[in-house]
């Protein structure tokens, strides 16, 4: 029998179908574009992470002694902008979504492959402008660009930063547009809406938000730019402009944006839990509809970011009510994932560890969101580290872990190689411990009064800050591990077969790595999603 590596080398697939820079930089193959995105967002993750480490370093001591106040403002601003717009927003949709959406519906590619490539180039251009902004002095508006600070009082590169995000926003819009049309129009015969994997439902809901919300961010940033450059002061108080109008417009996008960030992660979890419980998803329809519910309700809550900004208390009550309501579909998903695991045959593989970690940490982050949704409590904790901990529990404890879960789950499909399972588990554990050590203390810090965005604090907060910084170093190590072993696996990893996890889903019915056109023949679907009762109970490959 020929060695494993020669078997792969002999068969043509999307990675070896063509060689050279042009074949990658001018590709329209969704799988290659997904890898282009993977490299790009990983790069920005490390940039954002670098700023995070500087922040945590400064916060080791109560005095503002590492950097000046203005510099610190730049650190958290750049951390936020890079992490949100250049890592979290594209992460799952542009990497895993691009790779998997066509495969999961049995298509040869997305509806608009050239627009997909354009979307990546827009991301790169936007990212390039952001890098230039960082290297030439950065911006200190916070990731939130509040006016009139950003329009009238700052001398930093506000317009450049706004331009970079404006461009990246169009990358996001085009990805969403592509997914919506693909899912509507290109499903394989027999792949009805009710048979689609939940990963598709999640990405579809995400795409709705991308398409309807991001344009409002675009116009808002454009207005900030126009005000700074041409005195077209829509937000200028001297002309009767209202800074709160900016906040309404900004948060109209930026709240749904958090659902752009989390929904795809939920989709990943919905694929992993049934696979490693060897059971169908409990309440498939409810989980599918919950995704749509989150997308819709998520647009009705934005002013909960403005409770203390001066909005009407009656309006605040309405937004508070909807903020409680939007937790319901998320809770439904958590119940259904748990119910899926109940009496299942559980395999504690690396993806499953991350997915379970997601459920726990996302739930904590989500529940603390309810604290913030309460008007009275919010007055106490808004703009403190409580909020910082809340969103990091969801974004890092939730989303980043879901992203890593997905990367581990589909790595064999994408590369044809298995990552080393023991190292995978070790990294997952390290990340879980490091994450909690970093961010749990921040709930307490916030509750007891430490404000956010301050580089100096009163001495009674130091112990928890030191714990948090210690945690961040553990977390950093945890994130470096997959970088190393994923790269290692490209050359030395065990060959994965078509379906190492014994998973359901069309993507597992084709080779690993897949051929350029995904399937030898267009599949015809006659079975329901997650047909684990028909699949082998044993997971072929798990450490």
């Amino acid at each position: 029998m020929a060695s494993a590596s020669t078997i792969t080398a002999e068969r043509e697939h999307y990675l070896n179908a063509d060689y050279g820079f042009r074949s990658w930089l001018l590709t329209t193959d969704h799988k290659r574009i997904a890898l282009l995105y993977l490299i790009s967002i990983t790069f920005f993750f490390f940039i954002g992470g670098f700023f995070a480490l500087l922040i945590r370093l400064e916060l080791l001591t109560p005095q503002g002694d590492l950097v000046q106040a203005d510099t610190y403002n730049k650190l958290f601003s750049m951390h936020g902008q890079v992490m949100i717009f250049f890592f979290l927003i594209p992460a799952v949709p542009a990497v895993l979504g691009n790779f998997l959406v066509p495969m999961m519906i049995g298509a040869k590619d997305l509806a608009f492959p050239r627009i997909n490539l354009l979307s990546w180039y827009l991301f790169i251009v936007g990212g390039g402008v952001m890098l230039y902004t960082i290297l030439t002095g950065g911006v200190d508006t916070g990731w939130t660009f509040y006016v009139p600070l950003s329009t009238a009082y700052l001398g930093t590169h506000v317009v450049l930063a706004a331009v970079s995000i404006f461009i990246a926003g169009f990358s996001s819009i085009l990805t969403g547009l592509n997914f919506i049309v693909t899912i509507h129009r290109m499903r394989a015969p027999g792949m009805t809406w009710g048979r689609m994997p939940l990963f598709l439902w999640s990405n579809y809901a995400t795409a709705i938000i991308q398409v309807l919300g991001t344009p409002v961010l675009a116009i808002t940033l454009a207005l900030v730019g126009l005000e700074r450059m041409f005195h077209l002061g829509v937000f200028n108080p001297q002309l009767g402009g209202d800074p709160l109008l900016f906040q309404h417009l900004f948060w109209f996008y930026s709240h749904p944006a958090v659902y752009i960030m989390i929904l795809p992660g939920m989709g990943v979890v919905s694929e992993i839990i049934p696979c490693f419980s060897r059971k169908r998803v409990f309440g498939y329809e409810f989980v599918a509809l919950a995704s749509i519910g989150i997308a819709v309700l998520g647009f009705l809550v934005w002013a909960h970011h403005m409770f203390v900004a001066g909005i009407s208390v009656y309006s605040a009550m309405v937004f508070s009510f909807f903020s409680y309501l939007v937790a319901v579909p998320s809770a439904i998903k958590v119940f259904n994932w748990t119910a899926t695991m109940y009496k299942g045959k559980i395999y504690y593989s690396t993806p499953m560890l991350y997915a379970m970690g997601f459920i726990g940490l996302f739930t904590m982050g989500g529940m603390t969101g309810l604290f913030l949704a309460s008007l009275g409590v919010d007055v106490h904790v808004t703009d403190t580290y409580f909020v910082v901990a809340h969103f990091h529990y969801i974004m890092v404890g939730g989303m980043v872990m879901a992203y890593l879960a997905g990367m581990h789950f589909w790595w064999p499909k994408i590369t044809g190689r298995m990552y080393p399972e023991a190292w995978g588990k070790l990294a997952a554990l390290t990340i879980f411990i490091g994450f909690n050590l970093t961010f749990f203390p921040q709930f307490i810090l916030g509750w007891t009064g430490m404000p956010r965005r301050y580089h100096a604090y009163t001495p009674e907060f130091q112990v928890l800050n030191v714990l948090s910084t210690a945690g961040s170093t553990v977390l950093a190590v945890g994130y470096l591990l997959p970088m190393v072993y994923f790269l290692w696996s490209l050359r030395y990893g065990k060959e994965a077969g078509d379906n190492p996890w014994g998973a359901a889903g069309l993507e597992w019915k084709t080779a690993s790595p897949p051929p350029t056109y995904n399937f030898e023949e267009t599949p015809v679907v006659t079975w329901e999603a997650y047909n684990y009762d028909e699949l082998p109970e044993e997971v072929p490959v798990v450490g």
Partner: protein
Amino acid sequence: MEKIISAKVYFTVWAALMCLTVTTAAVSYVDLGQFSIVVALLIASIKGSLVVLFFMHVKYLNVKTTLLVILAGFFWLAILLLMTMTDYITRAWS
């Protein structure tokens, strides 16, 4: 296959749009108090509907998803405008 609409329909719609433009311009000189804006937006919406239904062929669609897409767009715009205005309008209540 796609339905081919006759040129006559298009010219009729064009004439209606021109007439409605003249109408809305003329009506703006009449004092309707608070209803001026209502009438103006109503006429604009009729004109808009004519463009969407006939020029953009929405009336002759095979595919109903398109209608869903259009309605979603206007619905979301309504969310932005209405929910933001509820803040400003109710500030006076306190």
